């Protein structure tokens, strides 16, 4: 499916736009702009395609952070269109188990992400519950690796009888910026998102909200620099909270 990411994204956007046209504009009754700030935490999982199993080796989710804006324009009482530009980390770690336990490389990838979303909502007293769906594009800003790995060229004095790899090879610890490469790394990411919004209106123009999101990348991180590559896709779950200001709450 991810090979046809452009086609799917385009189709998804067409469906959402059609939904907006059919349900939204003809029934416009309220024009309202919402501007919000949000911060949150996320957990990223690296989905692999064309994967090779390496003994004692696995990828694991890793937590991260996000912060950004929420701009939303109400098309009618039920539907709004918005963007949620955010700085977001999509992290993961490579780990080993068994004899190699303790070996890891944690990768922290920072993206600037721009989701375009449609939101439909229902309200009850001061609460508004919404469903959000859309697509996003993201740009991979930087990458950092931190790890502890065995150093084959720094062996221990112990001759044999090892029960753990670091008894054999000295541990090498590192924390360094990874130089993103135009040959290896695909820095533009496209994907879909789905989420919920729960707003609590505590003043006429102010609300607090929490917004869980699931971001599903359709494009992988690896450029096609060779044949037979393992492709890596970000799948990110996030939950953010913030404050939103309703601007120009005018009735048309």
């Amino acid at each position, binding site marked *: 499916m991810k090979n046809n990411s452009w086609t799917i994204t385009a189709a998804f956007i067409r469906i959402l736009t059609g939904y907006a046209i059919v349900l939204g504009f003809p029934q416009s009754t309220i024009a309202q702009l919402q501007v919000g700030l949000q911060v949150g935490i996320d957990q990223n999982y690296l989905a692999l395609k064309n*994967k*090779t199993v*390496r*003994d*004692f*080796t696995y990828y694991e989710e890793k937590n991260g952070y996000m912060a950004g804006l929420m701009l939303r324009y109400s098309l009618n009482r039920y539907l709004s269109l918005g963007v949620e530009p955010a700085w977001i980390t999509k992290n993961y770690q*490579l780990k080993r188990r068994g004899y190699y336990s303790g070996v890891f*490389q944690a990768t922290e990838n920072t993206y600037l992400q721009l989701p375009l979303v449609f939101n439909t909502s229902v309200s009850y007293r001061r609460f508004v519950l919404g469903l959000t769906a859309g697509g996003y594009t993201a740009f991979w800003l930087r990458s950092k*690796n931190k*790890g502890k*790995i*065995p*150093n*084959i*060229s*720094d*062996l221990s*004095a112990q*001759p044999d009888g090892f029960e753990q*790899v670091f008894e054999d090879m*000295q541990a*090498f610890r*590192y924390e*360094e910026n990874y130089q993103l490469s135009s*040959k*290896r790394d695909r820095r533009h990411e496209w994907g879909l998102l789905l989420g919920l919004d729960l707003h609590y209106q505590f003043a006429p123009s102010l609300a607090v909200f929490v917004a869980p999101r699931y971001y599903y990348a359709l494009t992988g991180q*690896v450029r096609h*620099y*060779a*044949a*037979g*590559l*393992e492709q890596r896709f970000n799948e990110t779950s996030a939950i953010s909270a913030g404050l939103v200001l309703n601007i120009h709450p005018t009735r048309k």
Partner: protein
Amino acid sequence: MEKDLDFGLIFEKFWDGMNRNYVMWDIDSTDWSKLRQSYGPAFSRLDIKDPKDRLMAVGYLQQMTAGLKDAHFMLEFDDPQLWPRQQSPADERLKLRTDYHRPFAADYFDRIARKYLDQPFYDAYYHTDLTHQLAYKAGTIKQQILYFRMNAFAIQRAYQHDQGRMKTLLDYVFTSLADPHLKGLILDLRDNTGGDLRDLNFLIGRLIDKPLTYGYSRYKLGNNPLDYSPWMPAIIRPIPNSRAYAKKIVVLLNMYSISMAELTAMALNRLPNTTLVGERTYGANGMLAEAVELNGGSFAVPDFVRVNMASALFKYADQQIYESIGFPPTVVVPHKQTATDTDGQLEAAIQLITP
């Protein structure tokens, strides 16, 4: 259910194994992706039951791997009817060197020891495994120079497991390092086929009193061809209570000084009192380990071929990679065998210590 073995499947396993496990794609000029397109269909046309096609497949693999930089790279075929069963591109490249010569005769170092070493000298054998059948010699030259000849490295293993002549020889060498009457050390690593990396600490660790950084190594962390670890320092650590060896060290090298022999010479070359004498080495500096250890290196295509190769790439302290090139000696003394067993390289080494 396991798919029946055919050459299409063998090719895919071999190509993919190389793509994921070879550690030198970033310095190699072989376009591995292109070879998949050109050789994949050719393999698919071969019949695994036809002996002629099996030979054809071996030929294709040789062509595909002829330019690989990893000098440890070797194809070892399962088919007992094939000869030679081991194919090494680096061995073929060696024959193209302008200074190419064959290795020394099997008894050469026995004759050299009898001619140059003071009587009596030590001579010991120890079989740690099939690839490291140790034949060491040690003694003095002119009562002034300690001479230690090793044909392969498994010193620590031999020292720990042997209670006979080999341990006596090694104890003699280690004790003689502190002998005030001796003016220097000649380490003869010509025709040394390499061996245990752990011997760096065990041997050179006796010549230093603080950690010695002599280069860097790097291996695979992920499955893609360019998924590398950071460069890690290559460090030799002194053994407890060791003292820095302040006298002259001369290391004898030739084009059959391979792998650990090269790393030993390169490490000692970091010491100010070391001179390398002889010829440029073989050029197999990568480190070997089980593939499971470092996420790369040797692998097998079951029932057809075992692929032996390095698990880590080595870069010397001068930031140069000498893989497939060989490390140059400080003083070049060409190989020359004479009827009288006059060893020009050894004589040059002696001259450097006792002019």
